[in-house]
């Protein structure tokens, strides 16, 4: 199980009955079909896909699509590949004669058994068609199959058929079919049953950033085997959730266990002064979080079975399941009731009820039961404070393994906005035409996690000044930063603060005897208007938050405050702001609060959100006016 298993490049949109003008497409699929055959071969299940893909180059703009890949790993064998181009001028076939296999590297996985078979269709040009056929053999019946009816380019006809022996009971779930022209047919023969889904004219599914999981939009089917019969005896695979747990538990039974005495010793040392279960758990969690480096080896069953806790501890690295298992061993040793927990990230929009299969998961954490509460522990997140789950599993269902046969389905709570805060305290003075300010930012929860990650992993060789000027964008790009204190980045505390002074040369506007000053040195969310035409798949928000700005402006000698903006607020359930201005002797105190209180926005909510942002921009537009006495 990988930290993030799935990296799909495709997502969805579709309006029913929408026809596609193929003549304006540079490249598209004429046909994309897959025939899945599940049969009993003696006493074993044989799973084989027949794949056919036919494409068309309608212009010469995107000939690079001729470069094609077939993905495979140790559970999938590819055979019988045939690929050729049909030359438009002669209608002759031209075969691909060079295929090469490449190991896959990159992403969050260091070493895996993923490979790609790469080849190039020859002589593609405007009007060319390509045809690819191959067989895909899957050698583990617990791996369910997915077929997506959409892709990165439009598809005229997409057909998925599943032929299954009648001694095998099939389960399937369909997702996101609404709004698509997809027909279903089931045909029962004497020995087999054939299920067929046929889709016409499926528009392209193109990635856009900050979107919800594309699997929430892409029409797809997931097929799994419920049970099979051998000699009149029925064997379950995924007949019930219990079977999924049995499979999960069977994987964990295969965890290698060598001498754990060093692991136990560390756990004991860490907790010797801890008084409560919470303190013990925190000490162990923070140790694993800090000392075990995320390195993922995912090959064969090593992608599913956690590794020996002693080895993980000794090598000081592992993937999510390795860290979860180490936590499990350490915590239980010191008397904490902790359990392995299989879970999906927010990329996996499935519930256990929808598909009782391993497709629900791409992650593993540890759940500790402390005083009747569950504490979710995900040490793959280097900076998440103890007590909070990692942001990317908020709201997700996990399967907590209790014993060999018992489990619990629990939901990781979405973390409330009050836990994730930034407080920005600013004092502004004017020195002739120069604006000077001192600022302190204090962050908590995911606001802290995001900032610390960024400083640690994205700052690179930038100087502190360069880094802050691009990260914070205070005032304008002429802002100078001095006296920067980036705080203590090593502590795993509940909060984190940074401070600095700034100077901006041409920020205030002087016209005649008047000075115009906009106190909104930062305008969070002002660039967040959603482009409705291209943001097609909802909007994902990493976490809920509140940002509080308290700005004190010292009115310069010889000037009087002529005009201040009116207090304004717009507070809704999912988002809001408020601005207040208070004059105190020679100071003006501006308070601003902005919050986001949702993790996901659907497309039909965009317009209201854009109106909110526009009203926020209006609020940002208001300057104060000073006049010379």
């Amino acid at each position: 199980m990988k930290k993030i298993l799935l990296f799909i490049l495709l997502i969805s949109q579709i309006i029913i009955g929408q026809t596609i003008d193929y003549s304006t497409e540079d490249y598209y699929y004429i046909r994309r079909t897959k025939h899945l055959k599940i049969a009993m071969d003696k006493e074993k299940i044989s799973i084989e896909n027949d794949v056919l893909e036919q494409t068309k180059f309608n212009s010469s703009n995107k000939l690079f699509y001729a470069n094609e890949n077939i993905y495979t790993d140790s559970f999938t064998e590819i055979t019988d590949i045939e690929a050729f181009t049909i030359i438009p001028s002669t209608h002759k076939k031209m075969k691909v004669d060079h295929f090469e296999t490449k190991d896959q590297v990159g992403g969050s996985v260091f070493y895996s058994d993923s490979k790609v078979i790469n080849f190039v269709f020859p002589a593609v040009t405007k009007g060319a068609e390509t045809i690819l056929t191959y067989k895909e053999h899957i050698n583990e019946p617990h791996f369910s199959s997915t077929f997506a009816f959409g892709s990165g380019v439009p598809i005229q006809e997409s057909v998925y058929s599943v032929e299954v022996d009648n001694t095998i009971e099939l389960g399937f779930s369909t997702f996101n079919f609404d709004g698509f022209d997809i027909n279903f047919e089931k045909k029962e023969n004497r020995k087999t049953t054939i299920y067929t889904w046929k889709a016409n004219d499926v528009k392209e599914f193109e990635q856009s950033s900050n979107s919800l999981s594309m699997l929430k939009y892409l029409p797809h089917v997931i097929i799994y085997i419920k049970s099979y019969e051998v000699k009149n005896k029925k064997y379950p695979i995924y007949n019930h959730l219990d079977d999924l747990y049995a499979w999960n538990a069977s994987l964990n039974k295969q965890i290698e266990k060598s001498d754990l005495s060093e692991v136990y010793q560390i756990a004991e040392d860490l907790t010797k002064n801890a008084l409560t279960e919470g303190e013990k758990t925190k000490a162990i969690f923070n140790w694993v979080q800090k000392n075990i480096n995320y390195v993922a080896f995912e090959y064969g069953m090593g992608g599913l079975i956690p590794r020996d806790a002693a080895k993980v501890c000794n090598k000081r690295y592992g993937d999510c399941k390795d860290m979860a298992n180490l936590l499990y061993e350490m915590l239980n040793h010191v008397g904490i009731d902790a359990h392995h927990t299989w879970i999906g990230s927010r990329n996996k929009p499935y519930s256990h009820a929808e598909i009782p299969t391993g497709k629900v998961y791409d992650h593993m954490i540890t759940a500790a039961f402390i005083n009747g509460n569950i504490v979710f522990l995900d040490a793959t997140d280097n900076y998440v404070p103890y007590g909070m789950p990692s942001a990317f599993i908020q709201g997700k269902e996990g399967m907590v393994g209790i014993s060999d046969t018992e489990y619990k389905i629990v939901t990781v709570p979405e973390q409330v906005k009050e836990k994730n805060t930034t407080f920005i305290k600013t004092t502004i003075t004017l020195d002739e035409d120069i604006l000077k300010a001192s600022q302190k930012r204090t962050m908590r929860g995911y606001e802290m996690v995001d900032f610390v990650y960024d400083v640690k992993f994205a700052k690179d060789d930038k100087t502190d000044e360069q880094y802050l000027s691009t990260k914070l964008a205070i005032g304008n790009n002429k802002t100078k930063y001095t006296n920067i204190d980036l705080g203590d980045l090593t502590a795993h505390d509940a909060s984190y603060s940074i401070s600095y002074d700034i100077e901006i040369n041409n920020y205030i506007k002087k016209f005649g005897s008047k000075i115009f000053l906009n106190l909104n040195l930062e305008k969070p969310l002002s660039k967040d208007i959603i482009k409705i035409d291209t943001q097609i798949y909802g909007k994902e928000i990493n976490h809920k938050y509140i940002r509080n700005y308290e700005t004190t402006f010292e009115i310069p000698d010889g000037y009087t405050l002529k005009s201040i903006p009116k207090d304004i607020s717009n507070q809704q359930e999912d988002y809001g702001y408020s601005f207040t201005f208070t004059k105190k002797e020679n100071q003006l105190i501006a308070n601003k609060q902005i919050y986001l209180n949702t993790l996901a926005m659907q497309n039909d909510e965009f317009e209201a959100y854009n109106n909110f942002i526009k009203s926020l921009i209006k609020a940002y537009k208001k300057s104060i006016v000073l006049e010379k006495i």
Partner: protein
Amino acid sequence: MKKIILITLLLVSISGFSQYHTTYDWSNTPIIHEITSDESKESSIAILKKEIVEFSQSKITNDLAVFETTHNIIRVNDEAGIARHTQIYIPMNRVNKIVSLKARTINKDGKVIDLDENNIKQIENVDEYGDFQIFAIEGAEIDSEIEVLYTLKKDYSPFGSETLQTDYTIQRAEMVFITNNLLGQIKTYNTDQEFERTYLDNMLVEELVISNILPVATEDYAATDANKIYAAYQCFGNPDLTQDDLWSNTVGNVASNFFPEKTSKIVIEEIKNNIMKDEPIDISDYKKAALIDNYVKSNYNVVENNNPQLEEIEFILQNRTASNYGILKAYAHFLKAFDIEYEIVVTSNRYTHRFDPEFYNPSALREFLIYLPVLKQYISPDRLDYRLSEAPANILGNYGVFIKKDMDYYFAKVSQNDPEFSRVQRVMDISFTDDFDKVIVDESQEYTGHWSILYRALMTYYTGQDKADVEDQLTGSGIEDKHTTKFEVENPEMNQTEYNLPYIVNSTIESSALIEEAGDSYIFKLGTIIGVQSELYQEKERANPIEMQYPNQYNYTITVDIPEGYTLEGLESLEIHKELVVDGKKLCYWKSDYTLKDNLLIITIEEAYKVNDFPKEEYEGFRNVINAASDFNKAALLFMAE
């Protein structure tokens, strides 16, 4: 044979010697090294980065081989440092034997954890990079030192290079170059230090030791990678081989590959049936060359894989698929058929290497262009975005070797023929809705040169959100609530046959964010409409020479319709004059002025960069001009009711 041009050499046999790498080892009693407090603030630093390159000849077979030893000691100070240095990839390109490979972690309390050899994995054929041995460092904690030492025996190649500067501090970099009496030489770049002859283990070696190498400064307008310290070397047995011989050899190879005697029949057919099908016979050379480039880019695919046929002309013409080296052969046949004189240019990406005619280093020779001397234009065979025009921005200004048909060659700078090739012209008409609620900007823009090449390609190849982002750039970036009511382009097709045809954008946008309210007055942030402009800082002394992408020029005319009943203040912020003059030549300038005519405010801007590289001593003057645009971007006008 990939991009690198290999050359064949006659090698004189000499007897072998003892080998230095066999006695070189790490310390049996490793210690944690001292670091300064500044160094401890970095995520990681290298205590040692050492490379030994040793050429050797077998006494028995006389075969030549090269042994390369790498020895690194890295201090990791935090989790980012650990993440950066614990995943090790060792390239197996040309390696025929791993002589030794070991790694260990020394923790701050002195505990040593050795790498378990069983955890070393092999990965094969990774994209264009070949095979690797990979492993993860075991037992690394904060404040540990990670030590890796390995020696690889590689197939003999007379050439090589090593980069000695990286993106973290190196306390001590060492390189040892051993030829074992074979003739060879080594040259350093981007440092004043040179190799010194010395004896190690009684062997004559060339050694370089550099202390405290800081990461290359990340600066705007800089070719950071090309400025890294590196060494390039050659080692061969033939004492008569000069740099001229090496270049001649390359030229010979190029000439035999890229200047065919006869044109292939396939090419003649393609010209007859496709390229010239609808064209009159007497078209200009420019149009012929443009038609060739358009045709090849619309019908041939340039790909990278291990298929050797991608460099065979028959296969290339049949399959219309080639490597980026092979595609030159296809071009050669088309140019030959049209009887257009051409030269092959072998050069480097100026952001990674500065071409050095004085020292033959094939690993730096990875870019190929076709130069048409009659037209003074280039074809960039493996660049989908470029069509017949000037050389691409990443090569412009670098030197290259220009190879002619008769095997004659010369070194020259890849320069731009038309100094005004790249221009941006904008005419903007600005008006306001009642009550200053919104600004309306009507704009017509003409992009030529590298600008038009860029935008044509982006708008053709991008789709969805990426394309929308380009449209955003084309209508003024950084306007928070911009609403585009009109967006039309002219001349968007990639395949053009007219010289430097402009890419034209006509647009209308509306924005409310451009106006701020202050009491009963309105502040119009006029400067914002020219889009976000880069601001150059100078916290430290400029480290890198200044490199712009290409010479270019902007001309704007902005007309503001002043609403009746309002007066304007703040006009003086529109007048900015900055220039950099070196040796009497105005290299770059910004000039913005305004005139008031009835109710119209007319602003004109001229900004120009006449060259693409500036000496770093002129940084202050250059910065002034660049920042003038950023100053103008902050310009604001106050509208007050009369």
